[in-house]
């Protein structure tokens, strides 16, 4: 464990969040291999079982995208562009390789750009299917087998079932701790702010899972022992979107007089709520989790039953969050050029309204330059909720 991790949990979180990648850099100096990846659909268990620290590549809303435009089109999702820009600017110089899942067009169609521009010793695309039927499941398992073999070849060591099971166990503990953390948000006022949770989860995907587990424990303990009760705010908000790896937007909502008490985001509930089942062949459980359990717009679910059932199948988890966390309103926060979520908006909005929560849909560009405009919209939305 790092020395810092034994300090106060939230202080450590703040440090890891502000100096994103600092722990990975330290570990690299100690001889540990750091494997970069994009998106919640990368099976981190396999990377960890191979002996690497999985490291989530993040962007930076405060950093104008400059270098990336020389190699990557501006029509790509701004988050992906920002991640690539940070990588080009040397922020992730400690990476030994990169793993990219076929999550969406912006991620997968830029694979050649990532692979050949960064020129890291290792690169691999996991070509995961969009469908969840049995042939897709078996195909995905075969892809994971290819990935496992590829990483084994790279390290020169076989990835055993035992090491996979150990990694699965650690990540399942990690997810259980996050669920416990989310439980602290159900109180009114919540025991922990949305901004604090977001910072913790972002920090957690940049350090080894064992350290993340300890860090989450420390934060939970610290929060439970807080002497100051969080301020009462009239409105409880849920944020839904793709990957939000910066707290600026969550902070904006909380700064406008509301608590963010729930989310369907990455890093966030979408990424941390589903476990890997313990299966005889560990790849089966991993495949089930990533292909079928994570509810994301990039995965196509076949319509069974009537349309209302279909909406429940796709968005029912959002409805359950609204109920369980006492959510007063939902903000759909979608980046420009996001195909998996952009096409969801009318259906998702209609579902959320049908369970009684007002919805604000915001399209953004992953940049601090839009914060002023967003603030006005958020304030108007909170007023609308307050007037009801």
């Amino acid at each position, binding site marked *: 464990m790092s020395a810092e991790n034994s300090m106060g949990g939230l202080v450590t979180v703040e440090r890891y969040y502000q100096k994103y990648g600092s722990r990975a850099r330290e570990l690299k100096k100690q001889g540990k291999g750091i494997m970069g990846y994009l998106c919640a659909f990368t099976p981190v268990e396999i990377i960890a079982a191979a002996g690497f620290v999985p490291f989530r590549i993040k962007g930076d809303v405060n950093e104008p995208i400059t270098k990336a435009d020389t*190699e*990557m*089109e501006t*029509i*790509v*999702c701004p988050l992906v562009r920002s991640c690539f820009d940070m990588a080009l600017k040397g922020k992730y110089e400690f990476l030994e390789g990169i793993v990219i899942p*076929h999550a*969406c*067009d*912006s991620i*997968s*169609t*830029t*694979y*050649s*750009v990532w692979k*050949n*521009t960064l020129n890291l010793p*290792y*690169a*691999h*695309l996991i*070509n995961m*299917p*969009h*469908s969840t*039927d049995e*042939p*897709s499941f*078996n*195909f995905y398992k*075969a892809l994971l087998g*290819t990935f496992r*073999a*590829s990483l084994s*070849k*790279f390290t020169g060591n076989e990835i055993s079932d035992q090491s996979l099971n150990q990694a699965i166990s650690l990540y399942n503990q990690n997810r259980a701790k996050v669920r416990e953390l989310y439980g602290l948000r159900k109180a009114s006022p919540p025991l922990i702010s949305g901004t604090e949770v977001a910072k913790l989860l972002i920090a957690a995907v940049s350090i080894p899972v064992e350290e993340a587990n300890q860090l989450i424990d420390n934060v939970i303990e610290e929060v439970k022992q807080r002497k100051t009760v969080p301020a009462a705010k009239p409105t409880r908000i849920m944020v839904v979107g793709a990957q939000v790896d910066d707290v600026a937007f969550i902070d904006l909502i909380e700064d406008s007089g509301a608590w963010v008490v729930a989310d369907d985001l990455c890093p966030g509930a979408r990424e941390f709520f589903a476990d890997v089942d313990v299966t005889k062949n560990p790849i089966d459980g991993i495949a089930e989790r990533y292909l079928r359990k994570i509810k994301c717009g*990039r995965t*196509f679910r*076949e*319509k069974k039953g*009537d*349309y209302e059932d*279909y909406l429940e199948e796709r968005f029912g988890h959002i409805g359950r969050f609204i109920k369980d966390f006492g959510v007063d309103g939902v903000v759909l926060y*979608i980046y*420009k*050029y*996001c*195909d*998996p979520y*952009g*096409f*969801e*908006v*009318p*259906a998702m*909005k*209609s579902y959320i309204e049908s369970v009684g929560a007002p919805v604000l*849909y915001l*399209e953004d560009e992953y940049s601090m330059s839009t914060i002023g405009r967003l603030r006005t919209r958020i304030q108007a939305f909170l007023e609308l909720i307050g007037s009801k």
Partner: protein
Amino acid sequence: MTEEKKPEERKPRKHATEAAGKIGPMVKAALKENLRAKEEGKPIAYAFIFSGYDEIIRAMDIVPAWTENYAGICGVKRDAQRFLERAEGENFSRSLCTYALCGLGFDSWREETGEMPPNPPWGGQARPTVMLGSGQIICDPRYKWYQAVQHYMPDVPVFVGGLPYPPYEDDYDYRDVQDYYVKYIVEELRGLVAFLEKHTDRKMDWDRLSEVIDISDRTWNMISEAYDLRKAVPCPMGTGDAMNTMVPMTFMMGTQEAYDFFKDLYDELKLKIANKEGVIPDEKYRLLWGGGLPSWFALTDFNYFNSKGAVFPAEVTYRLVEPVYNLDLPRVSDPLEHLAWRWVKYWTYRSDKARKRPGSNPDVERLIEYIEEYKIDGVVMHEAFSCRSWHPGLIWQLNQLKRVYRDIPSLILESDIVDISSYNEADTRSRIDAFIETLEAVKGR
């Protein structure tokens, strides 16, 4: 009111080949056929081009409605804006695929009123019986668009089958994984047949499917042989025309009509070559359309290039075939397996070549191959803002081309496929002028 807006009247684009001139009436006839099929109660399938299922639809006598095509027609007719605006009004971001937005605007309009939107381009698009998506390594709208349409037509079933191909990797060869790719695709195509049999009154006639595949294989070969003739100097047919002749390649594959069309094109090009008849009389620059879908509302830009002495003997876009006899396909008895192998081998066709050139990849290798075989002086690409399927990676391909091959003049135009508000004709043409000057300077060296 947007409903009352009349599309801009424009003169048809000038074609170099008679074949390209036949396309407009063919598309019109196909759309009429769809509307007639609807009246007659025949099953209609919303479908995407290049999704591996053309032959299945044809063999089952299901009428395809190519929704990208209809959006493209709206673009060509400069009558897409009212549908884009309607989709935007439904909370679909204007940054999404504008084919999809145009279709969503059209469908939501038709569903709300129970009839075609007023004055729909070429009669409009009929309500489908089923919608056939596709889960590929590219193009999110292929599984998201029809799912989104279901919000307005919840009773119309959607099928999304996986159709992947092995990515080009350094750490393994595609042959290491091709068997499980083929197995998966076959299972998904079999699932599609079962879906169509369940949701329409049609049954698969497997002998008929083999016949249809035989026609499409021969069409793949005929297209390749016809397009190869464009290597001639002067070039007898340019990319402007190829953006018309893509119609039988993408919307009519598996029909005798498509084969005959390309046989006629082959004969026409042979004759033009014999007569030394080029797209333009004084051919100064030979350009490669190196990537990106065209701006359907601005195809006359190709004529503008022609007016500057430039022709496009080749394009990457919509050259969706290779000679089947070059693909090293295994002999298989299952027609679905043949389709799967053809798909995988098409996508991995230049992998071996790329491996011989460090830093290259199949996309870059294709550019190099066309540059050499078609005697290319410069590369033009188009970055359509709304499409993340075909357009990300173009800048890198050009950069890599220069790194691993040679420096060659290049131009990336920026606009869209359907959304005319993204287009500025004066600006586009001044960029073309500047590019022509560069070509001239390079040639003069």
